[in-house]
């Protein structure tokens, strides 16, 4: 994959998370410990500072380095969860990925995040964004825009859910009526990546 494209992907993902840090924190304050925005911002600031060196690496190495930085910098549960996502993508993706390879890599990453969080679909987590995106992913033209919209709607769909995993689950029924912060950050990242592939 082209270095300029990789750099632009890294910078846009990082800037998107940094720009939405306050919103993510506010979502997490409503139903969690209120650190999602600040934690993700810390991780992505470190990635942004390293964007040139990261983009110069082959795609799998770049993803591995990003995953490792997220694990080491983000803290909270989102560090190992997003770290696992990127570390698994690193293992599964080739340097010149086909659409098929990308989808298979995301499917493997989804399973790895599920195992890491001991969670599943329907528990008001980031998995509730990745599952519908994977299900909607096919070869039709304009798929990037469709996946971006699917992710946005899926994050909205976590609002009426009751949290079963994570700090939000301590609230029981009081977790209903708020968007899951991890679902929101996932949809932001998916929308940003999709934009680079024509969305």
């Amino acid at each position, binding site marked *: 994959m082209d270095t300029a494209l990789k750099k632009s992907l890294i910078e846009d993902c990082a800037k998107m998370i940094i720009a939405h840090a306050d919103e993510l924190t506010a979502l997490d304050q409503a139903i969690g*410990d209120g*650190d999602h925005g*600040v*934690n993700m911002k*810390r991780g992505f600031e470190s990635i942004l500072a390293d964007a040139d060196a990261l983009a110069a690496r082959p795609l799998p190495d770049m993803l591995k380095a990003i995953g490792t930085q997220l*694990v*080491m*910098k983000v*803290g*909270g*549960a*989102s*560090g*190992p*969860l997003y*770290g*696992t996502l990127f570390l698994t993508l690193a293992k599964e993706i080739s340097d010149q990925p086909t659409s098929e390879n990308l989808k298979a890599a995301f499917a493997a990453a989804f399973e790895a995040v599920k195992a*890491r*969080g001991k969670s599943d679909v329907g528990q008001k987590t980031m998995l509730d964004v990745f599952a519908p995106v994977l299900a909607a992913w096919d070869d039709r033209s304009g798929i990037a825009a469709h996946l971006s919209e699917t992710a946005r709607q899926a994050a909205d769909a976590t609002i009426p859910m009751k949290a079963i*995993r*994570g*700090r939000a689950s301590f609230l029981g029924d009081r977790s209903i009526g708020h968007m899951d912060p991890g679902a929101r950050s996932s949809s932001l990242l998916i929308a940003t990546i999709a934009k680079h592939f024509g969305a």
Partner: protein
Amino acid sequence: MPNVGIVIVSHSEKVAEGAADMVRQMVGDAVPLAFTGGNSDGGLGTDVGQIMAAIDRAWSEAGVAVLVDLGGAETNTEMAIEMIDEARQKRIAICNAPIVEGAVIAATEASGGSPLDLVKQTAEELSPQ
């Protein structure tokens, strides 16, 4: 064989340190002990690198039992264990137990020379099955 080591991982450094004080009061220096708490900014949270370092400080050839508090502490500890030397991984056990009581009872069990699986089991008897 040396005694099993104990590691305490809390979101709060004060909680981790306080729990470690209670362990020391019970077992003195009979077990290797380390604690960590807080994220890399010094706020509440957990840090994979710090957890790896704590496991290293409390390392014992008999293994290490880790007590954690809430969600992210457990997930980050699992991540830390995966990033540690493979030969050590099998000798590190996260105990599903309340952090303070679990640390004290695990350390007490360890101080009598019990193996890692028994230290873990004794701590986990505190949790409802």
